[in-house]
Each structure stands twice: as structure tokens, then as C-alpha cells.
């Protein structure tokens, strides 16, 4: 800083102009570069850990340490022949699919009601329905645990499904609601003017129009359920879901097997999420 100030002063003729130019453009360029650096750094920060996870799933070393030792698929082989892990993966699919069905059954009518109807207590209904997104998942988990125990219900994958259904419905509601708000209602009026019954209008006009939002939000809810921990932790019985299995394995120590299965999950999630983002942003015919 001081150095540049002194060099400017050595040439008094152009000095003033230089100072002025520096004032006008210098800081802008400087801050532009700093900004770009900060933005690049931010992106790097977001993606380096994911890259580390992936790279070490192929590294021929039990310990995740540098330098890299060589390429291997042994961690994938071990992960995919690990019986406990496979059972956990199957459980996660079962939970995820069931939870998505539940979320749709509750979420789509909720979004519809919020968009179309005025009913007493609507504001309260909205608040309550969206509560699980804003509250830490663990509170939802504990509240449901207390209730299940008070009812004398045993914990199992069933209770996990109910938990995920409750926690993730809010995701479906917000996204389907957003799509309904953008939806051109004239089409529905035209349908009923042409003599369609309300249910016909719903199934043949409204539903096809929000189809991509529903598929998109299903994919997203599935991904979230597949990775869910805070609610699952409290509602799980004897059978593990995949994240709970990984959670209990990490407790015992790190192994690159986790990187291998983790890479598969991350890549799978990325594909599902990108697809879901695409579907949620897409406009239906």
C-alpha cells in the first residue's frame, strides 16, 4: 500500500491523473478480483470434501491419507458384498418409497387446500404443516418417539416411515403449492364449462399440469428420506437404514468402504436431485 503510494508520487506530472484513475478503476478491479477469488474459494470449499470422499474410495490404502497409493476397486467390492450394508440399503429403499407415498397422499391435498380453499384456521394449518422444515429434525423425532411409547407401539421400520412421512410432507407441500400458484386456472374453468365434473377436472386437467412438480418433489423427498438421520435415530427399531448403519460404523472407526458406498450414494443423490430440480423448474404443457 505505502509502496504504491510512493511510486505514484515520484512522477508528479501524471501522478494526479494516476491517482484519479486508480480511484475510479483501481479499487473496482481490485475488489472485482477479490470478489472472484472469494466466490471461487466458496465453490472450492463446497466441492473439495465431496471430491475427497470420491477420490479416496478408489485409493489403495486402508488409511485416508496423502500421497495417493494407486487405484483399486476393492472398497467397492467389500461394500457391495457386506451383508449388513446390503440389508440396510434395502431397508432404506423400502422406507424411502413408503415415505414418499405417504408424503404425496398428505402433501398434495394439503397444497391443494392451501391454494384453493379458504377455511377456518388456514393460517394455523399452514404454520403447523410447515413446522417440520423449520424445526430441527430431532424435535420431531423425539415428539413422535414419546407418542409411540405412550401408545405402547414398538419401534420398527414402520415408525421410521411414519416419522419420515411427517417430517418430509412439508417439502412436498411447499413445492406443489408453488406450482399450483403458477398454474393457469382458466384451463380448469374451461374444463368445468365444458361439463366436466370437479373430480374429472382434477384428474384430467389439474393433475397432468402439476405432474412434473409431483415427480420432482417425490425424487427430492426420496433422496432426503434415504439420507435422513435426526428423525430416524429416535424411531428406529432393530433393523437399520443405510445412514444409521453408516453412523454406527463410523463410531467404530473410518474405513474406505464408507467412501465407496458414500460415493455411490452421493452420485445417486446428485442424479436424482438434478433431475428433480429440472422437473420442478420445468413448465408442463
Amino acid at each position, binding site marked *: 500500500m505505502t509502496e504504491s503510494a510512493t511510486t505514484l508520487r515520484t512522477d508528479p506530472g501524471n501522478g494526479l491523473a494516476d491517482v484519479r484513475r486508480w480511484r475510479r478503476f483501481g*479499487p473496482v478491479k481490485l*475488489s*472485482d478480483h477479490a*470478489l*472472484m477469488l*472469494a*466466490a471461487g474459494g*466458496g*465453490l472450492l*470449499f*463446497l466441492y473439495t*470434501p*465431496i471430491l*475427497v*470422499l470420491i477420490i*479416496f474410495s478408489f485409493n489403495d490404502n486402508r488409511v*485416508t*491419507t*496423502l*500421497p495417493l497409493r494407486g487405484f483399486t476397486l476393492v472398497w467397492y467390492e467389500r461394500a457391495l458384498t457386506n451383508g449388513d450394508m446390503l440389508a440396510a440399503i434395502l431397508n432404506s429403499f423400502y422406507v424411502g418409497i413408503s415415505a414418499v407415498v405417504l408424503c404425496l*397422499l*398428505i*402433501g398434495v391435498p394439503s397444497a*391443494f*387446500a392451501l391454494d*384453493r*380453499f379458504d*377455511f377456518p384456521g388456514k393460517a394455523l*394449518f399452514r404454520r*403447523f404443516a410447515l413446522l417440520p422444515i*423449520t*424445526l*430441527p429434525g*430431532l*424435535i*420431531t423425532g*423425539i*415428539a*413422535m*418417539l*414419546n*407418542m409411540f411409547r405412550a401408545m405402547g407401539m414398538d419401534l420398527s421400520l414402520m415408525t421410521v416411515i*411414519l416419522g419420515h412421512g*411427517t417430517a418430509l410432507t412439508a417439502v412436498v407441500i411447499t413445492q406443489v403449492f408453488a406450482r399450483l400458484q403458477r398454474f393457469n386456472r382458466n384451463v380448469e374453468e374451461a374444463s368445468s364449462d365444458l361439463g366436466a365434473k370437479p373430480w374429472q377436472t382434477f384428474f384430467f386437467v389439474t393433475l397432468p399440469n402439476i405432474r412434473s412438480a409431483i415427480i420432482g418433489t417425490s425424487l*427430492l423427498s426420496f433422496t*432426503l428420506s434415504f*439420507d435422513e438421520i*435426526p428423525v430416524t435415530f429416535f424411531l428406529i427399531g432393530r433393523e437399520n437404514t443405510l*445412514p444409521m448403519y*453408516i*453412523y454406527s460404523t*463410523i463410531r467404530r472407526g*473410518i474405513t474406505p468402504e*464408507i467412501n465407496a458406498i*458414500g460415493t455411490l450414494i452421493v452420485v445417486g*443423490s*446428485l442424479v436424482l*436431485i*438434478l433431475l428433480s*430440480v429440472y422437473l420442478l423448474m420445468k413448465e408442463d404443457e
Partner: protein
Amino acid sequence: MRQSQRRRLAMFGVVSGPLLWMIAFLFIPYAVMFAYSFYSRQFPAIIPDFQAGNYLTLVTDPQYYQVLLRTLKIAVLVSLAALVIAYPLTYYLVFKIKSVRLRSVLYIAVIVPLWVSYLLRAYTWKTILGSEGVLNSFLIWTGIIDEPASIFLYSQFAMVIVLTYIYIPFLVMPVYTALEKIPRNLIEASKDLGVGHWQTFLKITLPLSVPGILAGMTFTFCLTMGDFVAPFLVGGPDGLMIANVVQVQFGTAFNWPLGSALSIVMLVIVLAIITASDRFERAGRLDLG
């Protein structure tokens, strides 16, 4: 007349299902949890004797309020750190990238990690920060340090890094929306009037993005409050957070009433913060006219 009746019937049909579900699986569980928080544990049983002893314990036993204070501290640090990283990134996306397509691609790239396995993104930090981890071995490899440093993992520092990393997208989303909404001619007007870039930023852009900042920090704060995975993975002995204490009450300590009381305290704090930030946001919006 018949039509309005039919409409009411349809409305009833659509609303009643979700309503019943929410009563059964949201309202009643919260109510049961609230009731539990007044029970007491007389090992091995839980007695429904309705007393405020659990709350009294939380206020008087330093073990509990210290953890609560630590959790609040970590949550503040995480929200600030996430803001410091997310703001320039978002600003750059909105104001410096001219191509709409590139901007939305980058935006999605920033947001997508949010939905990618939380557990694995936290786990990978354990492999990065560990004493034989990627960071240490990199530093030794390049000759910056001679011996692995053990300060990275199992500390509050590690927790703040991991949680910041996880919650950055939560800040980017609302800040992006706020920045995008700022009318460009406002900024141009300010520049035309000879106000410098920094002043324009401080007097126009920054104040107008406050609602987004507030919303993002609220999200981050509340989610950090309820996190027990990051402390479990990378937090040290002094890294226990309130959610871990709750978790222990429902596990080994087997003190559900106390755990429920703690959850209610968390719930109240989170709801208070959300309500306050909502008010602020609305007040801010009114200011803009």
C-alpha cells in the same frame, strides 16, 4: 346454493385427511412431549406426577445451561461464518456473471450439495481433519509442518467448519433471492450521482439484502441448534451440544422427562428466533415501501 354446499363438501374431503394426519402425528406428539417434560424419572420407571423439577434442573445445574450457552455460541459462529463465505459468492453470481444460463448453472451447483447426504458430507471432514487425515498429510507432504497437528479434529473449531460447510447453501438461497430483487437502476442512480462503489454497496445493496441475510442466518442458526451428528463426528470432549445431551437422555441416561424438557426449551428458542426474524424481515420490507 347447492353448488356452494358441494364445494364445501369437496373442501372438507380434501382438508380432512391432511388435518387428521397433522393432529395425529404433529400436534399430539408435541403435546405428549410437553406432558412428558413435567413427569419425573424414578428409576426404572417414569412417573406422571406433573412437576416442574426438570425445568428447575435445567436452570440450576450448570452442566445443562453451559451446554446450552455453548450451543448458542457455536450456532452464532456458524451463522456468521456461513454468511462470510456465502455473501461474496452470491453477490458474485448475481452481479458479476452476465450470462443467465451460466448463472443458473452455478446457482444450482451451489445449492445441490444441500440435499446430498448430510452424513457423508460430515463424515468426509473427519477423513480430512484427522491426525492421519488429508489436511495433515498434505501439510507434511508439502513440508509446511513436520508432525501431524491434532488440533484440527475433535474441537469446536472442527465443528464450526463442518457445520458452516453444511449450511452455506441455506444462506445462499435467500440472499440470492434478495439480491436479485434489487432494482438495477437504483444502483445505477447511486453511481450516476457520484457515489463510490463501496458507498453504493454499503448504502443500497447491503441494506436491501438484509431480509435475505436474516432469513438465511435464522435457518442456519436453528439447524445448528438441533444438530447432533457433527459434534458426534468431529466435536471433541468440549464439543458436546444441546442435541447430544438430549440424545443421551433418550439413550443411556434413560431420562425421557428431562430430555423432553430440554427439547421443549430448544423448541421455544427456535420458535422465538423464527418469529423475531420474521418480524424484522417484515419491518424491513415496510421500510422499503
